């Protein structure tokens, strides 16, 4: 028995391409440019789609292009980190992606699968500004932005922000609650938090959490909100649901405070994105230039202003009106530490539990 990743697909693709007489793509002539800051070439970036893509393009990519006019950036967008991981696995033997910005739990898995390269401060000088808690202990891609899970609510229904996760269970809002079920990271986080709230160690068992979440089920309008968890509240399909602070803040502005985001008093969990350089990346040098820029105070500030992600570097001073709306990373917010690797390992199992016991009562 041997371990292998999706090399088979790539092989198939190559065979297919040559049969069709097409040029195999991604081949090119990458010629590793060695270390040192490259100022030309191209970078294939894989990251989130939707509003994230729009805002990141505006706040980070456009200024980067202005600064490095000879570096071209191709943005490949995916709806989830899992989809990014899947894409990277498919290209493992012959990558055509250089940089990936994805959830920490997923990039961890990527690190373990040998999909990413280690980085250091020689190639990425701005790494020096990343505090240790946001660096990868094995030297892989560092944290590039921080967000946290919260409750997204309709401000008309909640003149005062909900204070507890228990608001989700409140019969008043029966049929007006949205939850994003696992495999989504939001659902995984809710499961872990519920487990904690039930006085359980989620690494051992989630039976109590499951029982509690079963009681939530009748309240839930949708377990897979579409187009997303924010629009559901904005359109009034639901009044309360799971969401992330950053996008919640952004949509709050977009809708003239129709929605709000709150961090419940029981504590919450971070949603952290890392920036990763793909192993054997076709444009490794330019990739590092981009990763370095992503960690710059300039980019971090701009993105915090654009989409309210908290910076992961120390040399940033956000304006007060922005600072008050990004997730605090200074310890002032009650954060429940979650074992990200553990959660990644039980994602299948918990997803199954939701499907069999919680969604289908």
């Amino acid at each position: 028995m041997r371990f292998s990743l999706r090399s088979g697909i790539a092989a198939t693709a190559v065979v297919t391409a040559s049969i069709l007489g097409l040029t195999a793509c991604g081949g090119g002539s990458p010629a590793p440019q060695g270390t040192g800051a490259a100022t030309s070439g191209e970078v294939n970036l894989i990251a989130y789609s939707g509003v994230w893509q729009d805002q990141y393009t505006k706040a980070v990519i456009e200024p980067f292009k202005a600064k490095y006019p000879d570096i071209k950036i191709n943005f490949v967008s995916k709806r989830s980190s899992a989809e990014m991981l899947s894409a990277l696995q498919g290209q493992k033997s012959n990558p055509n992606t250089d940089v990936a910005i994805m959830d920490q739990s997923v990039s961890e898995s990527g690190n373990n699968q040998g999909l990413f390269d280690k980085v250091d401060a020689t190639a990425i000088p701005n790494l020096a500004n990343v505090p240790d808690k946001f660096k990868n202990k094995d030297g892989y891609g560092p944290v590039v932005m921080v967000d946290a899970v919260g409750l997204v609510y309709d401000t008309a229904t909640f003149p005062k922000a909900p204070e507890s996760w228990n608001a989700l269970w409140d019969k008043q809002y029966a049929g007006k609650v949205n939850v994003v079920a696992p495999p989504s990271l939001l659902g995984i986080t809710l499961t872990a938090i519920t487990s904690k709230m039930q006085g359980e160690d989620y690494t051992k068992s989630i039976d109590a959490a499951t029982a509690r979440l079963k009681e939530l089920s009748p309240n839930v309008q949708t377990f897979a909100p579409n187009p997303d968890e924010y629009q559901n509240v904005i359109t009034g399909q639901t009044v309360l649901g799971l969401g992330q602070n950053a996008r919640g803040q952004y949509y709050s502005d977009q809708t003239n405070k129709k929605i709000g985001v709150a961090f419940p008093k029981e504590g919450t969990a971070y949603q952290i994105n890392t920036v990763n350089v793909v192993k054997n990346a076709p444009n490794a040098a330019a990739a590092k230039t981009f990763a370095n820029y992503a960690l710059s105070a300039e980019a971090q500030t701009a993105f915090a202003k654009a989409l309210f992600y908290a910076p992961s570097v120390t040399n940033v001073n956000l304006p007060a009106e922005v600072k008050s709306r990004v997730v605090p990373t200074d310890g002032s917010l009650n954060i429940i530490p979650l074992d990200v690797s553990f959660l990644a390992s039980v994602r299948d199992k918990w997803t199954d539990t939701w499907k069999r016991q919680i969604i289908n009562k």
Partner: protein
Amino acid sequence: MSITQTEPRQADRPGHEPGALEKAKVARDRRTYIALLVPAILGLFVSFVLPLAYMIRMSFNQGAPDGVIVETFTLDTYIQPLTDPFYWRVTLDTFQMGVIVGILCVLVSYPVALFLARTTSKYKGLLIAIAIAPLLTSAVVRTYGWMVILGTNGLVNSSLKGMGIIDTPLKLTNNMTGVTIGLVEIFMPYAILAMISGFGRLSYQLEEAAGSLGANKFKVFTKVTLPLSLPGILTAFLMVFVLSISTFITPRLLGGGSVQVLATEIYDQTTGLLNWPFAAALSVILLVLFGAVIAVYQRITKKIGG
């Protein structure tokens, strides 16, 4: 001696190899045919056979968390869903959804198709084009349309509320009701097309003949129109059934996570959990289900067509 008798003798003339020329010509023709077929066969091989073979092979691998695939040969990926009542229920729900959507879709499409097939209007072409025009918009867009219409504050609920028929909004979306409504509407053009093309044996004259033999309008319909449109109805049903059980967009978008069918399950396994072997095994199961249904369909059509 008649002309027909002399004809074959020509081949026996001295200096003429018997049949050699013909043989060469046949061989050349065959080569031409094969050469002409090669692109199609190759295309089919690359676009259909190869992925299918790859998928089947994948289904015997073993999935590990976060997309790691253990290359092996195991039946676990099949044993697991086939011995798990959960997947039996998902399969059953899938089948049931296909049947219900198929029946409803046929019911609402039949009158339209019958009208379009029988009309002698000079706008017939235009009318057919209008009936199938929704195909020009993607199923995703139309599904979003239904989300707006069926939502808590959607058109249906606010109208019913406005008319004082209901107090609390009906739950028309994020459940099987919504998925069914959406699928029925989305597949109507397919059903209409399938029916129109399946109404070949139906003719105005047959209905007139039945009328002249004493059948009233109802009898004409039950004894002539309906039996003769049965092949079209069956084809439409099969088509909608197959499309319904294989689509994941509408069940996912309008199902709100509560509608668990094989297609959404495969989608979740592929994109959410990255368990490709398991997803491949589920796909093969779905494929077998298709095969079974199509086999039954062919039996039935043979019966009613013959």
